[in-house]
């Protein structure tokens, strides 16, 4: 199980958004994609799951060209959890998870016991089985993300793409969701906003700036005050996490005395 981006470039409406992105996510690794708003994180992820087409480069899954596969086959290997989703329609949580079975089903085929078992197991593993019959739209942001992860599990994919999965969540769910994802043992590529959190969970991170990879490597080497000033244009202090030694960001004010 591995996911590899090889010289990926993407144009949107005639403009180059990301250029020459090469990232390797090894078997069972959790790799973070960092960078300021608009630096191209989502564009890269959306190219992997076929919302955008690359202008150049390839996406390789275990060495095979992912974008050349049939969409259904690709969806059986790569599942996506994006930011909080809103549905116009009133599905229950269990129905949302069942939607994850789509790439495994033919036209007209009914839900089998196997599908129902996959849904139940996925929800139990994520710990959201008590939400099964609740209306998805009544769930909190954190609960919705749990259900989305269960949906990705029911999809049966061994690769997971996460696009800022902890946005808008409280600290308990931020930690809980990332712990859960790590515990799944999948091969994960995640766009993350919170650099300290990324440092805590990712084995490797890549810092994007203006659609290019500025630096990549272990969090301790990438997340430095200088790199963050260059990429984000923000001044921060970086200290060591007292327990893990991973970099931890402390924001600074430009004028500390200002009222």
């Amino acid at each position: 199980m591995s996911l590899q981006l090889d010289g990926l470039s993407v144009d949107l409406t005639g403009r180059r958004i990301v250029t020459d992105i090469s990232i390797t996510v090894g078997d069972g690794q959790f790799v973070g994609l960092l960078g300021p708003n608009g630096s191209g994180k989502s564009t890269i992820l959306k190219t992997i799951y076929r919302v955008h087409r690359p202008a150049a480069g390839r996406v390789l899954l275990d060495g095979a060209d992912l974008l050349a596969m049939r969409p259904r086959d690709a969806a059986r290997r790569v599942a996506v959890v994006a930011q909080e989703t809103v549905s116009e329609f009133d599905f229950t949580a269990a129905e949302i998870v069942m939607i994850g079975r789509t790439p495994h089903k033919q036209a007209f085929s009914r839900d089998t016991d196997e599908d129902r078992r996959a849904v139940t197991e996925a929800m139990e593993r994520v710990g959201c089985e008590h939400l099964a019959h609740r209306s998805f739209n009544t769930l909190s942001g954190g609960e919705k993300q749990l259900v989305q992860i269960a949906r990705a599990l029911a999809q049966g994919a061994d690769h997971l793409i996460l696009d800022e999965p902890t946005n808008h969540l409280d600290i308990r769910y931020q930690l809980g969701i990332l712990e859960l994802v790590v515990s799944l043992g999948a091969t994960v590529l995640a766009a993350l906003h919170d650099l300290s959190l990324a440092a805590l969970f990712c084995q490797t991170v890549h810092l994007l700036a203006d659609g290019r990879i500025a630096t990549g490597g272990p969090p301790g080497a990438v997340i430095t005050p200088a790199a963050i000033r260059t990429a984000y244009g923000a001044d921060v202090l970086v200290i060591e996490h007292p327990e893990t030694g991973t970099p931890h960001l402390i924001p600074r004010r430009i004028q500390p005395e200002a009222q």
Partner: protein
Amino acid sequence: MRQDDDHAASPAFPAVLPVAVSGVRASSPDGATEAAAPPAQAKAAQAKPEPAKPEPAKSAPAKPEPVKPEPPRAAGRRRDRAPLPVVMAACAALLLVTMVAGVGLGSVGLSPAAVLHVVSEQLSGHPDNTVAGIIVWQIRLPRVLLAAVVGAALTTAGVVVQVLVRNALADPFLLGVSSGASVGATAVLLLGAFASLGVWAISVGSVLGALVAMAVVFGVSLSGRGLAPTQLILCGVVLSAMFESVTSFLIFRGNPQATQSVLFWLLGSFGLASWNQLPIPALALVAVMAYLLAQGRSLNALAMGAEPAAALGIDVQQLRRNLFFAASLLAGVSVAVSGVIGFVGLVVPHIVRLIVGSDHRRVLPVGVLFGASFMVLGDLLARTIVAPQEMPMGVITAFIGAPTLLILIRRRPYLYGATQ
């Protein structure tokens, strides 16, 4: 290899998650008071830290955050869906009853037994040439069947358009079909276009108008990044307004007598129903339903959004194009045989979703039966309540549909478009 197999229970998250589970249990003793509180209040109360709890909130891991989202009991209640066969059987029975009533009731009343007798005689090859036989077979049955087919077609088109643009307020005529058809039909009625086609002139005129409108909406929407919902809605609304102004102009220039018939057509009617109008809408309905039932899961995925659908291995562009043509076809053939019958395509899908949930593999078949029953009942009322005159269908559908939906909305927490 799936990660489901090679990892047992997730070890890490449960360390955090029991908080959620215990939170559920802890709150159940006072569940009764919560249930009594109106949802908004209950939610507000939960959003605040609970002052009642004496427990010192200093050790974070032991105590769940007070914001632990436990939505109001009323909204969070278990949603049990009735088994599909039961709902289908009930709707089929409803359709049968409304159809028998639709054929039996009118200026000459016939008992259900008499109606069934005529129909069975006809089907077994013994035409019944009594007055009752002619009323049933030549006049009322084709009319009732046409109403059923159009009701089913408009409901299906409504479901499809609502998913296509991910907007619960959409209806089948959003895509410009009806306004284009109106221009065509008005031209026929006022200017005598296609006069050589006789009774088919209006149908041909409206189909041509619908095709032109559809092509324009499709062409304009497609020029951007595929059939994006916002573009579709905007193009549909803007072009509808343009076509309607053409219709208005034609009415303005036309003679007052003909204007009356245009107005009647615009509000819809089954007054001109005949057997030979049935095959085309019926075939269109069967073909589109076969396609849609095959795509039930894809429709569910698309209801989540284009990007989640793409991530599930669905060719979203292709699906949207097919849905656009399916909805336009159904709306177009409906308009051609019965005029512009509003409200059914908007309201019946909502009623059906309230009954069976949003899973399209349930909504579509139930919608066909329910939409057909709704329209047959509507047509029955249209020709009986102000007999011997006929009420336009559009008046009836809105008049029954709106209160029905309002009652259902009040009775169940209804969540279209709500984010809380």
